[in-house]
């Protein structure tokens, strides 16, 4: 019968219309500016730098300015300059750490390649602006956010990272202690085997 399919279709739309008043499966609108979306833990937008202490974020950055992320960033939106003292010796922290959010594609590769867990992905997405140049170029003071904040947005990952860093620190300390003990022991009787302490791993701040 001609028209049966049409009527069937109209029944479907009618079902959806009525359903949208009582069935949450059919009424899916989120009232965005009033109701904030429930972001999943994994959600990522732009990177930020993890700092240990809220009172001195720039002094306690985990970043050691090794520039791996700068090199690996596919769209090249990271710019790092190592902080150096008067003699030119590296202070192992960034003097300049810029991320151009007008280029960043939120791919998370900087997070994956960072050996120091210093850069992580933020979840702030309400960043529309009318300023083209400087507002979109984030400097290290804007990027530095505390570990507490990291725990708030990615609790599982942050707990993992903290546990790993603590374990590494402990292992490093024990190794240093053992090396010192071995040195002290070997210094007196026979200076045969020069202690060859492996360089301490990641200088965990």
């Amino acid at each position, binding site marked *: 019968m*001609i028209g049966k399919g049409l009527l*069937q279709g109209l029944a479907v*739309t009618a079902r959806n219309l009525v359903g949208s008043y009582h069935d949450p499966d059919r009424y899916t609108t989120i009232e965005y500016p009033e109701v904030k979306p429930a972001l999943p833990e994994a*959600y990522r937008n732009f990177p930020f730098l993890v700092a240990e202490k809220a009172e001195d974020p720039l002094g306690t950055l985990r970043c050691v300015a090794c520039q791996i992320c700068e090199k*690996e960033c596919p769209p090249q939106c990271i710019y790092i300059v190592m902080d150096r003292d008067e003699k030119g010796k590296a202070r192992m922290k960034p003097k300049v750490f810029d991320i151009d959010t007008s280029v960043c*594609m939120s791919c998370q*590769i900087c997070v994956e*390649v960072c050996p120091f867990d210093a850069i992580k992905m933020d979840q702030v997405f309400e960043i529309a602006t009318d300023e083209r140049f400087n507002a979109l170029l984030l400097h290290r003071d804007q990027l530095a956010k505390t570990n507490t904040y990291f725990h708030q947005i990615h609790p599982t990952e942050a707990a993992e990272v903290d546990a790993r860093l603590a374990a590494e620190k402990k292992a490093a300390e024990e190794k240093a202690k053992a090396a010192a003990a071995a040195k002290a022991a070997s210094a007196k009787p026979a200076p045969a085997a020069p202690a060859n302490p492996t360089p301490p791993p990641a200088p965990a701040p």
Partner: protein
Amino acid sequence: MFDANPAASPSARVRKVEPSSFGFQPSSVPPPAGGGGDLLEISLGPHHPSTHGVFRMNVVLDGETVVRLKPVFGYLHRNHEKLGEGTSYLGSMPYTDRLDYLNSMTNNWAYAIAVEKLAGLTVPERAEYVRVILAELTRLLNHTCLAGFLMQDCGCSGTPLMYAFRERERILDLFESLSGSRMMCNYQRFGGCRVDPTPAWLAAVAQLVDRYGPFLDEFEELLTGNEIIMARTQGVGRLPAALAVNAGVTGPMLRASGVGHDLRKVDGYGVYPRLNFRVPVGDHGDVYDRYMVRVLEMRESISLLRQALAALPGGPVLDPKAKQRGLRPKAGEAYGRIEGPKGEIGFYLVSDGTANPYRYRVRPPSFVNLTVLEDLCLGHTVADAVIILGSIDIVLGEVDR
């Protein structure tokens, strides 16, 4: 000429509604014999609501009949291949998300397969199953949206697309909670996947799979038997099987023309040989068949998802020996391809032993499928050209790269 897949049961080939069951004439009009009358040349696009992006067709019309049609490409040519040659192997992975931006998961997978071939990497079994789950979710997402867009082109403005996007959001929520991003997942890695899915996530997938069947029933109730849609799409844009094969057409469009060619069966990559599914094949090769094949494929995807979820083994999802950063494959080349929702998506990589590929080539299914656009549109009205283009299922990010 071609043996349809033996696994495809006859029921998959059944046309739900025979074209003769209603009184409308198909809209295909033979081109005028004498070529009399004035010809009109118009340019559809690059800004046109029905060209699925910045695609342009230069159409020559006799009255309302298309007598010549030349596609114009390049309005979204963003140099994907050139950038791929300047980026490391890992760095190209997020770029593949942006090729066919509806289906980032399958693009990732195709690229990962190509690199795994090039570097000789193996993939843990759990990762293979996770890849199947994600690829089939992507297929559901793509085909649902395509049906919505196609109906938009037919003139049902809004409603089917609205329903399609409602379901798409549910799949995107899953992608987002797994990979962190709605569209640009950047999830696959060489030798596995980036994140291990949690049991809660797998339960959410199972729940979605359970409700997708009823949604498809409703969607089909709305569209499949609709007389206007049948009148508009049946007999329009017929693609003969021989031409489809010769013109490199792949994916649902090839299968709608009656060729049972599906890389999941032919190449048997991943764990597809262990899963049981049928390959739907069309009989007429028209727009309606292309729609129908996709709907049937979604039904098979649901079954595939159920099997993959049930058989998902434990273990790691990423080969710990596989190098991601600083991968330097031996000099040589590899071509890896998978059955994406739009057809055969392949990556051809040439390595010269350095950290960046010497040549990085994407074989884009929708670009090659467009080869037959003119053949399909000749003799039809300009309104039919729009739905023929819609049924080819193009995404400009992939056509122009």
